[in-house]
Every structure is written in C-alpha cells, then in structure tokens.
C-alpha cells in the first residue's frame, strides 16, 4: 500500500554510528526519494552506502545509535514495535543484497523462500494460494515455475539474483533498495538483472534506491544520482549531468577514476622476448559417470593458444563460465591439463618433474579476485608477504622481513613498517589488493596472472590498482595476463585482448579494434552490456 505523501524515503540530518565506535558513519544526511523514482547512491568504498541500507531497515547491531529524521512512507522505523517493524520489512521496503549466493538459505528450495515470505506476511492465506502466488512471482522474474523445487546452489549467479528480486518485490513494496546487486555478476548477466529489476519496479510503481560503486552502471539505470562521502551527500543531481560535469571534489575524483578505468586508448604493444607461450592448451573437467563407457568431459579450455611477451598485458575476456578462471588454474597448476603445451621462459612446464616444475612456477604468480579471502586472516600483512620466501626456503626470517618492507613500499603502502604489522581485516579493499600484488611479487615473477583482480573494488581503487600494475610492469618488465569480464577495463589496460567463449578463443586483437569493429557475436554482446560513462557531445 503506497502512502499519500508521495515520498518513499526521507532522511533529515540523519546520523548513524555503531555502538562500539565514536565516529558517525552517516553524518547528517538530507535525502529524499519520491514514489516510483529511480535513484542511485554512489560513493567510494567505506563511505557508508551499505550502512544506510541496513539503517533504513534497522538491521544494524542492537544499540547502534542514530539521530535525525528517518521516514519510510511517513513512518519512522525506530519508533515501531517489533511486530510493526517486521511488517515494514518486506511489505514497505524490499532489500536486494550484493551476493545472492550467501543471502539464500542453502537448505531451502527456491519456492520455499517465497512461500516462507508470503506466509510470514499473509499467514491467513491457504498453502495453495501462496504456492500459486510464488509461482507467479518466479515467472515474473523469468524463472520457470518448474524450478520451484530447485535449491539455490543449482542456480547460476544471475538466476539467484533474479530470485533475490522476486523476494524483494513479492509484496509490492513502496521502496526497493538494491545494494550492489550486480557486483558478483558478469556484464551480460548484470545488464539483464538490472533491466529486470528496473522494469519490475516500474511495473509495480516502487521507488528504487540503487547503491553502487559503478558510476557507469548507476548512470545507465537511474535518472537521479547522489554521491556519498564520509557519511554525507556531497553532490546530487541528474545522473547524466553529474557524470559529465561533476561539481564536488569527490564527484570529480570518482568520475575521473571511472574514466581512467574505462581507458580510451589501447596502449602500444611492446616488442620484447616471449616469456609465456601456450599452444593448444586443453583443460577438461570429467563429468561423473559409470566405470564403463566413454568418459564425459566439460571442455572448459579447449585448444587455446597465445603468446605473452615481457612487459605486455594480455586481456582475457568473456562471459561467466567461458573458461577464464580454468585457464588461470591450469597455468598455475591448480587444475589438471589434458593436452597442449605451456612454455614458461622456454621451459616446457608439462614435462618437468614436480620439483623442477615447482621452481619454474615461481616465475608465474597470481593475484586473486577477492583480496580478503585470499589472505590468511590470522597472518599479519608482513607474514603473508614473507611466507612464499620461507616456503621456498629462499630467505631466512630476517631477509624475508626486509623483503616484505621493500615490497610494501613498492606497491605504495607507506610507511611499510606500519602496514607490516596490520591484519587483513584492518585494511580497505584497495589496500588489500596492493598487499596481494606485493605477495605475488615476492618471488620475482616474470608473469603475473590477475584473475578479476579489480572487479571487487570501487572505481577509484580500480584506477589506482591499474596504475600500480602499469608502473610495476614498466619498472619490472612484468608480463600480465589480465582476466576480466569487463571489456572496457581490458581495452584501456591491455595491449592485446583475447575473447573466450565455451573454452575457445573466438576473437583476438587490440582492445580498441575489438570495441570499434567486433566480429564475434559474443564480443558484440560484451560491448552492448558494458555500461560506459556518458560523453559530453553525445
């Protein structure tokens, strides 16, 4: 039921902090969303975007103090009883989370989630009517009702997020908050999910608050945009206007970072010696079958060939499941290779004995997607960086300690002695990715594999990490295999790009050529789904 004032959300000098912290995470927010409006809330990591989403629904830890006005459809959730607050959640406000996998009960079916929600809010209705409604909701977001009894783990990321949308919109709430709903999805799926979300919101007349760090995506789907920094709205206006001509310092920094990340030009190709040569590489996963009969395979990587030169960055782009990550794992020895050739500094990796292979692989290091998950939470940053040296018995404790200091300075974490003592949880996403790069550089590699290494970072951190990688590449002559689903990032960073689909290379060439004259349909799809910042003359 929509309120008559026409305002879905209103914040007046709203302040919020956690009970343990003296600092206000949100510090005097003045913000309004009208019914049926689509507004994006953008800002750098840690600016308080997600805290706002949780504060609106009173999901922050008990005892977290807040001040100022907060009204959802004219009601202050802080003044409501538990029963009324429960009704407000779901009925007046629907929340869509970032990672759909962890946000769904793994033991509950897809239909079970919807039935559970409908029963909680309409306990008097019969089971059959609830089931019918749940099936309709699934169909509404493009999930066939036959999948009613499927479990979340049997769904792809995009399908799970569609279910997240169905759950948020099930009771036709006046306000839908989508907190980074597409961060964990590839461009094509993200595009489809956002199209679904916006059309559904429009259909039922819900206002949408899109929380994102991706300015181009936010600009594409929302007519109005607000920039949050240090707990305050620093700029607000029409999305297009704000992205073309930002007024605030934060706005300018974010837009510049987003433009730098998009990269207009493909860098020039270097003519140096080849460090990694991959010929007809095959990495197939066996499918479970009987002991007899022909084995069945998923050909995740099939006949992939490329060369990587010293100081060169080669982009590998493609949709989810195209074989990008299997390629990384195959090269680093984390998944078996069924055929082909991998030459690293003229050494045939596949024919080497295990000890020689281990030594050779020191020249090939990896930077993972999620820096927090890739670092041991119980190890200090210094220990994490020194660890490879100690494992390979290359240095003693003292030398490893000195090396970690040197590397921290090299990746821009200064003063190194301070960062060395920190634990991963104490650093931001961008700082953690710098640590991950430092750790990868410990063994003086010739090839660095970056598997979606910037996709989890905000635009500003992404641009900083890309600049760092470029500087390291120029200073150390590193060859970089840059795996990403974002063609625009790859275009600006890589000398050459290969487009993977179903384990095959379907197109290759300099990024700008692929962008201007895509030949393969999958490349066209990647370009179409890739949101770009608006240009002034367009």
């Amino acid at each position: 039921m929509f309120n008559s004032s026409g305002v879905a959300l209103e914040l007046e000098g709203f302040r919020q902090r956690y009970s343990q912290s003296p600092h206000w995470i949100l510090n005097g927010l003045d913000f309004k969303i009208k019914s049926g409006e689509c507004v994006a809330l953008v800002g750098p990591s840690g600016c308080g975007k997600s805290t706002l989403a949780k504060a609106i629904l009173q999901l922050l830890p008990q005892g977290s103090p807040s001040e100022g006005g907060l009204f959802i459809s004219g009601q202050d959730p802080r003044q409501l009883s538990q029963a009324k607050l429960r009704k407000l959640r779901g009925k007046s406000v629907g929340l869509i989370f970032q990672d759909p996998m962890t946000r769904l009960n793994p033991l509950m079916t897809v239909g079970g989630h919807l039935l559970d929600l409908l029963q909680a809010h309409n306990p008097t209705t019969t089971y059959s009517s609830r089931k019918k409604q749940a099936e309709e909701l699934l169909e509404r977001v493009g999930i066939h009702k036959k999948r009613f009894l499927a479990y979340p783990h049997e769904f792809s990321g995009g399908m799970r997020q569609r279910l997240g949308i169905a759950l948020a919109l099930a009771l036709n709430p006046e306000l839908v908050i989508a907190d980074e709903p597409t961060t964990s999805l590839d461009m094509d799926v993200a595009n489809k999910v956002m199209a679904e979300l916006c059309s559904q919101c429009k259909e039922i007349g819900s206002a949408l608050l899109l929380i994102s760090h991706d300015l181009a995506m936010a600009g594409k789907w929302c007519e109005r945009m607000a920039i949050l920094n240090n707990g305050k709205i620093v700029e607000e206006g029409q999305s297009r206007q704000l992205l073309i001509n930002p007024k605030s310092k934060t706005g300018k920094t974010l837009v510049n970072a987003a433009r730098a990340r998009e990269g207009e030009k493909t860098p020039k190709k270097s003519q140096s010696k080849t460090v990694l040569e991959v010929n007809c590489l095959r990495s197939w996963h066996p499918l479970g079958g009987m002991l007899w009969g022909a084995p069945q395979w998923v050909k995740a990587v099939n006949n992939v060939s490329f060369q990587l030169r010293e100081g060169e960055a080669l982009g590998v782009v493609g949709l989810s499941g195209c074989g990008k990550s299997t390629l990384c794992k195959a090269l680093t020895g984390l998944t078996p290779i069924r055929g082909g050739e991998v030459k690293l500094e003229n050494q045939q990796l596949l024919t080497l004995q295990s000890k020689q292979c281990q030594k050779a692989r020191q020249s090939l290091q990896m930077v993972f997607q999620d820096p927090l998950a890739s670092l041991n939470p119980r190890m200090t940053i210094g220990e994490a960086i020194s660890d490879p040296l100690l494992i390979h018995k290359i240095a003693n404790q003292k030398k490893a300690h000195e090396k970690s200091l040197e590397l921290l300075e090299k990746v821009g974490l200064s003063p190194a002695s301070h960062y060395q003592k920190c634990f991963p949880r104490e650093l931001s996403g961008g700082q953690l990715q710098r640590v991950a790069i430092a750790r990868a550089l410990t063994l003086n590699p010739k090839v660095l594999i970056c598997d979606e290494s910037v996709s989890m970072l905000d635009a500003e951190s992404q641009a900083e990490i890309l600049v760092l990688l470029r500087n390291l590449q120029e200073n150390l002559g590193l060859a970089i295999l840059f795996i990403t689903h974002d063609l625009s990032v790859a275009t600006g960073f890589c000398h050459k790009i290969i487009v993977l689909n179903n384990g095959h290379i379907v197109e290759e060439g300099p990024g700008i050529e692929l962008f201007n004259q895509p030949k393969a349909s999958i490349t066209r799809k990647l370009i179409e789904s890739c949101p770009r910042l608006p240009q002034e003359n367009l």
Partner: protein
Amino acid sequence: MSRGKELLRYTATRLALTPIMLWLIASMVFLLLRVAPGDPVDAVLGSRASDIARTALRARLGLDQPLLTQYLVFLKKLCQGDLGQGLISEEPVSKIISQALPATIELSLSALIISILIGFAVGFSGIARPQGKVDFWGRIYGISTYAIPPFWAAILIQLFFAVKLGWLPVGGRFPPGLIAPQVSGYLILDSFLTGNLTALQGALRHLLLPASTLGILLSGIFSRALRLNLEKTLQSDHVEAARSRGISERQVILKHALPNALLPILTILGITIASLIGGVLLIEITFSWPGIALRLQEAINQRDYPVVQGIVVVIASLVVLISLAIDLVVAAIDPRVRY
C-alpha cells in the same frame, strides 16, 4: 542422474564396501590377539596344568595349526555367520553377544537422549543471551564435562545418590529378587510389552544413574557444538536476509538458522555414538552393568580369542552402519552434498 538415484547408488556402494572394511577389522583383531603376550590355554587351564592337558586343549582349539590355517578357518566361519565358542564359558559367542548387546544399546541410547536434551537446553539458553550469566555457566558446564574423568564422575554420583541418599540402586541392571521379562533383551521395552509395571520401575531405577552419568558427560559436546554453530549461523548473511524480509525471529531460528546449525552436529552425533563404546566401558564397570563393553574387557583379560573377535566384529559392523546412516541423513537434509 536424479538425486534419489544418486543417493541409492551411494548407499549401494557404501554397503558393498562394508564387508571389505569388516574383513580388514576382523583380520587386524585376529593378528593383534596372536601378537599380544599371553596364552589362552593358560587362561583356561591355569599355568600349573600338565603339558599333555595343554597340548590336548591346544589341539582342540586348533591353536596348534599354522597361523594361516587358523586365520582361514576363522574367516570361513565368519563368512558362515559362525563366531565360534567362548573358551571359558563354552557358550556360542553369538549367544554371549545377543545377551550383552541389548544392555549396552539400552544404556547408550538412554544416555544419548539425556545428553541431547541437556546439551540442547544448555546450548539454547546460552544463545538466548550471549555473554550473559547463563551463557557463562553453560560454557563452564560444557568444558567441565569434557574435563571430568568418567570413572571419577561415576563414582561420585554413585556415592551421593546411591550410597548416601539411597535413592537409586548402586549397580546392576535389574532388581535381584525379580524375574526379568524375556522378549527382546531390552528390559524397558520388554516390561512395556508384557505390561509388567514392577519390572519397568525396577529396570528404570537401575538405568537412571548410569544413563544420567554418561548422558551428562556427553552433553557438554552437544551444548558447545549447538552454541557455537547456532551463533555462527545466526550471524550469517542468509539469516540477515531473512530478517530483512520481515520473517519472525521464531521462524528465522527454526527454519533458517537451526537446520543449518544442526548439520555439523549430526556428524558429531555419529562420532559420539561410535565413541560411546569406550565411554560405556568405564560406566559399565563402575555400575556393574552387564553390557558388551564389560564382556569385551573380561574376554580380553581371559585371552578368550573367539569372544573378543566376535564382539569387535559386531561393534565394528554397528559403527559402520551408524556412520552410513548419519551420512545418509546429512545427504537427505543438505541438498549440496554430492557423491
């Protein structure tokens, strides 16, 4: 392959592997008994028996045969379901087991129920107010139950409730003056089936002390496991998402948090049941409970090879079947489990 078929195939594979596991266990027990010092002939005849008598007994028991022959005979009989005869009592081992096993199962099952009831009550009350007084004492209780040696706890409980207060009998399984109902060997069940209330009361009074002692000692594992797993699950993302959808706190706990928190506890339950045999022994000795662990201990002391071998094979089969049952239950609850 559908999930049902997948589960059926897994069950069949596990059941097909069971005889191999049992063969390995039986072979190991056979070998260990022969390697261990001591002679069963000494145990039967005493060390002063004449050489002729010793030789005759050795020949009668087949101990004069080469080890391989003895092993093959043992395996052949085992395959035919013949566990042999006890050296001392000269009773069939299967009969000895069928008399002692129900007593142990009755005690273990009762102890397990008590431990789950107490453990879950303590665990739940802790999670209701984390870091509160109840939670603090619940944790102390949990740690204490691991730390206290079972025999010492058993003696203390026996001294207090049976000797000092005289509320319950000191030991045994049934009042000496009464005739136990003979149906299945499970005295509580048999008393129900025959409608014999005096026998039921007598059996319950004897069961209460050993079962509660064992139950209390095991309850700490469950209270700690429930407390930790439920706390972790209640902080998980999907529980927060359920709350954000306006699901009531009761439903959040019962439908979303508890099933996920119970999964690891099911595995702990399987391990606990398997380890009960060791835990039961000390309780059976202290309370003179005529169970299988007590018989096993006697048989080991007496070098009664056939009884030891028979009991170990039967216990091993039970452990294998219980672990299979637990795996199947986990697979039925958790759709993510793949085989």
